C-alpha cells in the first residue's frame, strides 16, 4: 500500500438516538491520513472527536460511510474480523490509560502479545524493548497503582505499540495529565511515530500539542472544518 493513504474515511455519519432528541455526532466526515504521519484531531468538547475515533478504530459503527485502513474496509468487518484487525493493525491509547490494575507494567505491555500467542521469550524481549523506548525500564515490575499518571500513560503507549500496529488511535491521551507531563507524553508519541513508523491519529484540546503534529484536522459539531476538506486529495 505504499504511496496511498493508510486511512481513508469517506462520508461517515453517526447519529445517536432518533426523533427530535437525536444527536448528529458526525456529519459527512471524509478525510485521508498518509502513512507514517501524526495527525491531531482538534475540537471543542462534544464536537465528536471520540465518536470519530471510535468509528475509525471499529469500536463503533457509522450509520453511513466507510473507513478503510490499509486497504481493509473496517465498516464491513464482523466482530472476529475487527478482533483480528485490533490484534495487528490498530491500537488504542485512552485518556484513562485502561491498564489492568493487578498486572505489572511489563505484564500490561505484554498483554496484546499474549493474545497473538507470541512465544514467551520473544514477548519478554519485545516488552523490555518497548519499556526502554518509553523510558520505564526501571519500573517494569511496578503495578499501575504504583505509577504516576504520566508513567501509566507511557505504559499504555508501550502496550499499544506491542503488536506493531500500523495505526495508533489516541483519544486525549494527555487529558488526565498536567501540562508538562502531557507534553512529554505527546513528545513520546511523536517519537514513536518517527522510530516505529506508525501512523497516529490523536485527539486533543491543547493547542501546544498540535504543534507536534504533522497535520491538524479540526472538527466542530460533527463536521470537518475548513481546509481539511481541501487537503483530502493533497495529503495523498
Amino acid at each position: 500500500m505504499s504511496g496511498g493513504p493508510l486511512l481513508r474515511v469517506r462520508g461517515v455519519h453517526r447519529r445517536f438516538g432518533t426523533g427530535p432528541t437525536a444527536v448528529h455526532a458526525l456529519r459527512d466526515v471524509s478525510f485521508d491520513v498518509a502513512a507514517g504521519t501524526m495527525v491531531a484531531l482538534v475540537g471543542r468538547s462534544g464536537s465528536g472527536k471520540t465518536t470519530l475515533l471510535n468509528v475509525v478504530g471499529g469500536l463503533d459503527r457509522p450509520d453511513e460511510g466507510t473507513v478503510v485502513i490499509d486497504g481493509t474496509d473496517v465498516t464491513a468487518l464482523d466482530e472476529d474480523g475487527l478482533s483480528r484487525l485490533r490484534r495487528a493493525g490498530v491500537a488504542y491509547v485512552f485518556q484513562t490509560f485502561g491498564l489492568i490494575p493487578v498486572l505489572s507494567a511489563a505484564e500490561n505491555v505484554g498483554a496484546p502479545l499474549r493474545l497473538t500467542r507470541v512465544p514467551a521469550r520473544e514477548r519478554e524481549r519485545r516488552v523490555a524493548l518497548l519499556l526502554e523506548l518509553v523510558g520505564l525500564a526501571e519500573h517494569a515490575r511496578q503495578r499501575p497503582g504504583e505509577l504516576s499518571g504520566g508513567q501509566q500513560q507511557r505504559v499504555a503507549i508501550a502496550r499499544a505499540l506491542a503488536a506493531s500496529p500500523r495505526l495508533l488511535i489516541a483519544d486525549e491521551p494527555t487529558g488526565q495529565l498536567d501540562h508538562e507531563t502531557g507534553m512529554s507524553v505527546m513528545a513520546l508519541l511523536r517519537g514513536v511515530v518517527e522510530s516505529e513508523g506508525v501512523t497516529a491519529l490523536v485527539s486533543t484540546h491543547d493547542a501546544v500539542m498540535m504543534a507536534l503534529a504533522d497535520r491538524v484536522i479540526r472538527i466542530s459539531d460533527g463536521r470537518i472544518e475548513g481546509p481539511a476538506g481541501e487537503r483530502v486529495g493533497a495529503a495523498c
Partner: protein
Amino acid sequence: MRGLGWWRARRRWRPPVPHWPSIRGRARADTGPLVLAAAVVAAVSLLAGAAPPLLRAAADDAVRDAVRRAGGDADVLARGNWEPDDGPTGGRVRAPRLAEDLDDLRARAVNELDPALRAALRPPVALVTSDILKVTDGSVLRTFQLAYFADDRGPGSGPHVTWIAGGPPRAAVPDAAAPAPYDGPPWPVQVGLSEADAEALRLRPGDRIPVQDARRTVKDVRVSGIFRATDDADPAWRLAPWLLHPVVGADGVGSTRLAGLLSPDSLPDARLAFDDGQFRRTVRFAPEPGALTWESGRAVGAAVVALKAASGSSGALDTSLRWETRIDAVLRDVRVRVDAASAQASVLLIAIVAAGVLILLLAADLLVHRRVPALVAARQRGATLPDVGVELLLESAAVALPAAVAGLVVARAVTPGAAWGWALPIVVAAAVAGPAFGVLAAARATRDWRVPANRTPRRRARHTGQLRRATAEAGVVIAAVAALVALHQRGILPAVAGDPAADQAGGVRLQASAPTLGVLAGALVLLRLLPFGTRLTLRRSLRSRRPLAVFGAARAAATAARVLPPLVMLVATALACFALTLDSTARQGLVDGAWRAVGADARLDVAPAGVPATAALARRVAAAPGVRQAVPAQLTDGVRIAAAATDVAPRLVIVDAAEYRRLLAATPLPDAPQLDRLTATADGDLPALVRSHDGSLRPGMRLELLRTGAPPVHLAAVGTAPAVGGAVDVVLVDAAAATAAGVLPAFNTVWVTGPGAARAAAENGAAARVVLRPDVLRASRAAPLTAGLLRLALVSAVALLALGLLGLALGAAATAPERWQTLARLRTLGLRPRDARWVAAGELLPAVALAAAAGPALGLLLAHLTLGPLALRLLTGQATDPAPVPPWWHLGLLPVALLAAVAVVVPVESRLRRGRRPGEVLRAGEGLPDAVLGRRSLP
C-alpha cells in the same frame, strides 16, 4: 483548612432537609434493586413470621399427641379412704349406700380440680378395686381382683353388660343389721364374671371362686352370673381389662390376672369382705387430648403440680383425697421435645435471617455502587451528609417496612398467626444498610483522594479499613467460639422451659446461633485466603500460554478484595448444607428410631388370650413366603428385679438368644454379640444381659427376678443387653435357659423380618396387634413436631440456596460494570467477544468455586460440631443423639447449582450488553475515577 470547615459546619448546623425530587429520581432510576430488596425482605419476613406460629400449632398437636399416646399413664387419679364403718358396739357395719358414697367422692374430686385442669379432663369414673387375690386351684399362678365402676351416669353406671347366665351380683346378706365381727368368717360377696374369665376358671353361676389373699385368708366370693360386654371398646374397660378376659403378665412373669365385676348391691359386701387397706376406691379422670393446647398444657401441668403438693399423704387416715397422676411427667416430656424442636427451629431461622441480612447488605452495597455519581451530584448541589442519609433512610424505610408488613400479612393469612420478632433484624438491615453505605460512599467520594500528594492519608485510610475489618472478624470468631462452647456446655434446651413462640420473639439464645456464627466465622477466615488463592492462580496463569487464563485470573484477583459477595455465597451454601444435613440426619434418625421401636420389619403384639399359641403363630409366620425370620419373645414391662441394694423395674425380654442375635445381625439394629453368653449357665444362675439408664443394672451383678407367689429366680448379669424397643432398662434372658430355670416364657411378641413380613403378619395376626415398621416410620414422620421441623429444614435449605444464588447474581451485578469495562479494553487489544465471556466466567469462578467447595465442607464441619447438642434424639426416638448423616447426593447439587448459575449469569450479562459497542462501554466508565467507586488497587 479541613478542621475549620468542619467547625463552621458545626456552627451552621441545621436539621437535615430531604430533597424530594432527588429521592423520587433515584428511586425511579433504581427500581430494580429496590424491588429486589423488597422481595427479599418480604420473603424472609414471611418465612420468619410464619415459622413460630406453625411451631406453636405443632406444639399444640404434640401435647395432644403425647397425652393420647400416654393412655392410662396420663390419667389423673384421686384416692380417698373409706369412711370408718366400725359399729358403736364393735364389729363392722354394712353400709348399704356405699355406691352413693362413691358418687359423692367423685363429685368431691371434681370440685377439687382447678378449672383449667377440669377443662382438660373427661368426666371421671369412680373405681373400686380389691387387693390382688391368688386363685388357689391348679399349679399356674393366677390372680383375681374384684372391681366396681361408676361414672357420672349414676350408681352402677359402669360400661353396659348383658347377662348371659345368672344375673347381676346382689347383696349376699340382704338385710344385715348386725355388725360383722372383726374376726368372723369371711363375708360373702357376689361378683359377675365375663365369659372369658368364667371359661378360664371353669365356673358357673352359683360357684365359689377359690381365692385367698396374700395373708392366705380365704375369701368367700361367688359367681352371680356371666356377662358379655355390650361394647368391648368402652374406654372404661381399659381401667380393668382383666374383667373382660384373663391378662397375662399383669402380676409378674408367668401370672395371669382375672377379675369379678361388682354391682352397687354387692359393693357393701365386698367392703366387709376385705380390710380397709385391701379395698380401695379411686376416682379416675382421663384427659381429653382435644381440649389441650400448648398453653393449656402448661396450665394443666402447673395445676397438677399444685394439686399433688396440696394432696394428703398416702398414710393419712382421713377421707381427704390424695392425687396421683403421671400427666405432669408426660407434659414435661413433651415440653422438653417442644423446647428441643423450637431450639432446632430457631437454629434454622437464625441461619435464614443471617443469610437474609447478608443479602440485604450486598444489595445495599450494589445500590450505592450504582449511585455514587448521583450522590456526588447531590453533595455538589449542597446536600450535607445528614441530608443524604435522611433521604436514603426515607427511601429504604419506604421499601423495607411495607415489604415486611406484606410478608407478615401473608404469613398471617396462611398460618395461625405471625411473629414479627424474627423479621426485625431483616427490616433493620434493609432500612439502615443503604443509608449507612450511601453516607460512607458520599463522604469518601467528596473527600478528594485523587491528588497524588495525598498518598499518605490514603494509606492511612486503607490501614484503618483493614483494622476495622480485622476487628469485626475477630468479634465474629470470638462470638462463634463462645456460642459453640455454650452449646456444648449447656446444650440447646433451656434451663427453664419456655413458650415456643415467646422464645422466638424474645431472647434468641446464644446456643441456637452457634451454627450460623460458626459458619460466618469459618467463612470470614476462608475469605482471608481467597486473595492469596487468586494471586497464586494469577501468578501461575502468567506462566501459562493461555491468554484467557491470565485475564480471567487478573480480574478475579482484582475483585477478590470484595468480601461481601463471596461471603454471602459461602455462608448461604454452608448453611444450606447444614440444613440439609440436619434434615437427612433427622430422617435417618427416624428410620433408626422406627427400627428400634418395632424391632423388625413387623411385630405382632399378641393379645393376652393368644399368648399360649404365640410359638405356633411364629412358626406359621416364619413359613410364609418372603419371611426371613419370625422370632417369638416375651416382653414384660416393669418386672421387679432386686439388684444390689435397690429394686428396679426393667423390661424383661425372654427370647431365643441365637435367633435374636441373627435377627439383630440381619437388620440395621445394633448387633449384640454378648447374646452368645446367655446359653452358658453360670453357677446355676440364669444368665442375663442387662441394660439400665442409670447404671443400677451392670454386667457382673447378681440379680433376683421377684415373682408373686413363687420363689425369686437368681440371675447373673453376664453382659450388656441391646435396647429392646423404647425401653431404657432391660433384662434379657434366653428362652431355653429360662425354661430350665423354671421361668416359663409366655411369648407375647413376634418379630418378623423379610420382604413379606408385613403381609405374613397381617394374614396370621388375627389374634395380635400388627405393628409394621413402615407404619411406625410414617407415623413418626407425621408427628407434629417432627414433620414441622423436617419441613422447616427443607424450606430453609431451599431458601438458603436461593439466597446464595441471589448473592452470586448480586455480586456479579455489582462488579459487572467494571468487568465489562475491562473486557471492552481487552477487546481493543483484540480479544474476541466469545473469549470475553470466558474471561468473565474466569473472574466469577474463584469465589464461586470457593463457595461450592468450601461451603458444603464448612456446613458439614458445623453439623459435626453442633448437631450432637441439638438433641435430635428427642424427635427421632433414637437411644442417643445421632451422628450427622451427610446427604451426599443433595450436597453434590449445591456446587452444581452454583456453577450452573455462573453458566447462566455470564451469557445473560453478555447478552444485556450485546447491543453496546466497546466504544460505548468504554465511554460509560469515563469520568468516574476508581477512588470515587471505592475500588482499591491491590497493594
